[in-house]
């Protein structure tokens, strides 16, 4: 009984990670791997501004294909950057979680590329969440240990929905830009560009 629950858990976790990896890209600037990115939409990658310092970058998709990308928007205050590339055929893009609000203690999965690893996963829980009626916090705080290569990659729930973009570690906590804030930023900033 206990063994089958743990076994099922391991299997489902591996499946959720595999699904998330498909919506995660590698970001390279001037030939160097600089971080991760979320395949937000067809031809659109969201990452951290600190991951892409120049105007151009190369993204590498889950299936190994690389594509040149250009930075179309950057927000240093939020540490976000939007990259556009020419999509080749159909591709998976991230599912964003708008609701319900995050709960403290909920499991979260982060995907990134620390060191020479591609598509590494880290498991943790939500450390702090917004309270009803309060202004939305700037960061999601997660109790999960991330290395630098996780920057710009997804923080997702157990259903594989993106809840945030991993940005930095502070005081042992992972800080991620909430997916709702990213979505609002993409709607505001990106729409005129692709129009």
């Amino acid at each position, binding site marked *: 009984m206990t063994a089958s629950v743990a076994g099922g858990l391991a299997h489902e*976790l591996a499946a959720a990670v595999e699904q998330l990896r498909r919506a995660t890209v590698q970001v390279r600037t001037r030939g160097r791997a600089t971080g991760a990115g979320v395949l937000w939409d067809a031809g659109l990658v969201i990452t951290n501004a600190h991951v892409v310092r120049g105007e151009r970058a190369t993204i590498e998709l889950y299936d190994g294909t690389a594509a040149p990308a250009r930075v179309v928007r950057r927000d240093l205050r939020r540490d976000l950057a939007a990259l556009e590339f020419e999509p080749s055929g159909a591709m998976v893009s991230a599912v964003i979680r708008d609701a319900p609000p995050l*709960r403290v*203690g909920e*499991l979260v999965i982060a995907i990134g590329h620390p060191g020479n690893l591609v598509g590494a996963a880290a498991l943790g829980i939500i450390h702090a969440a*917004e309270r009803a009626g309060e202004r939305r916090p700037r960061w999601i705080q997660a109790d999960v*240990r991330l290395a630098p290569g996780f920057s710009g990659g997804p923080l997702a729930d*157990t259903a594989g929905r993106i809840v945030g973009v991993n940005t930095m570690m502070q005081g*042992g906590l992972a800080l991620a830009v909430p997916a709702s804030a990213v979505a609002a930023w993409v709607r505001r900033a990106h729409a005129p560009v692709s129009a």
Partner: protein
Amino acid sequence: MSTVLQSLSTELADAVESAGRAVVAIHARRRIPASGVQWRPGVIVATHHTINRDENITVTLPDGTTAPVSLAGRDPSTDLAVLKLAGQNLPTAKLRSDSPPAVGELVVALGRPGPSVTASWGVMSRVDGPWRTWQGAEIDSLLRLDLAIYDGFSGGPLIDAAGRVLGINTSGLARGVPVTVPVATVERVVTELLERGTIRRAYLGIGTQPVRVPESLARKLELEGDVALLIVSVESGGPADRDGVLLGDVLLELDGAAVRDSADVLAKLGGDRVGRPLAARVIRGGQVKTFQVTPSERPTSRAA
């Protein structure tokens, strides 16, 4: 689609939510607040080291309101403090006292270093028998955690996956390493602090150092062990001084039990020993001598 993974996630969040209703923020120091738990109705348990003042202490309740509390007592030796909260309808923590946590068990540390509850997760890394803190208190079992701790978590509960409290977390007992004071110890300290306001502990006013007794002397005196305690300091006017303990005495036994380190001495100095004579067996001037020492109640903020 409900999966095992999603069920685990939901259950953890449920456990945090239900247990978090009994967790408050304690405002009794500068910078960030610490945490506390409503342990019994109207009784909040917190950590001694995060309470830097005896008055003007307030708590932030889970609903965001602030309420004044009064300090009922504190025990530096277990790093626990008890506060009284009047007139609030706050749930009381569900305690797990029937079965101890197991090594490898999934646990969550809760805190409320502000208006919102915070959580970190991990596993029990060590569960062991009773141990003694550096100030001499006996903790019923050693509970070590493999989890990350954050500012303000001291005084918060360690909970199991069902939201039941396993103890109070503190970074103030083992040089910043998080340990959990188990339910049984908290219960004992809360009861005594509510009754008396302090934890009675006996003390002798001696400093000791383990020494090896030379084999020839041990043979001559027909001693059983080879390690004893050299008295390296005697507090002026303290109980040991008053009863004739001399600097340089080598303590062999206390109350009929061999003493090999300071923990053996502390084990004989529970609160119930105050004023009750103990037989001390020492080597003095090459001879074995036995006499009585009577512990006094230890003044507060004194180590041994």
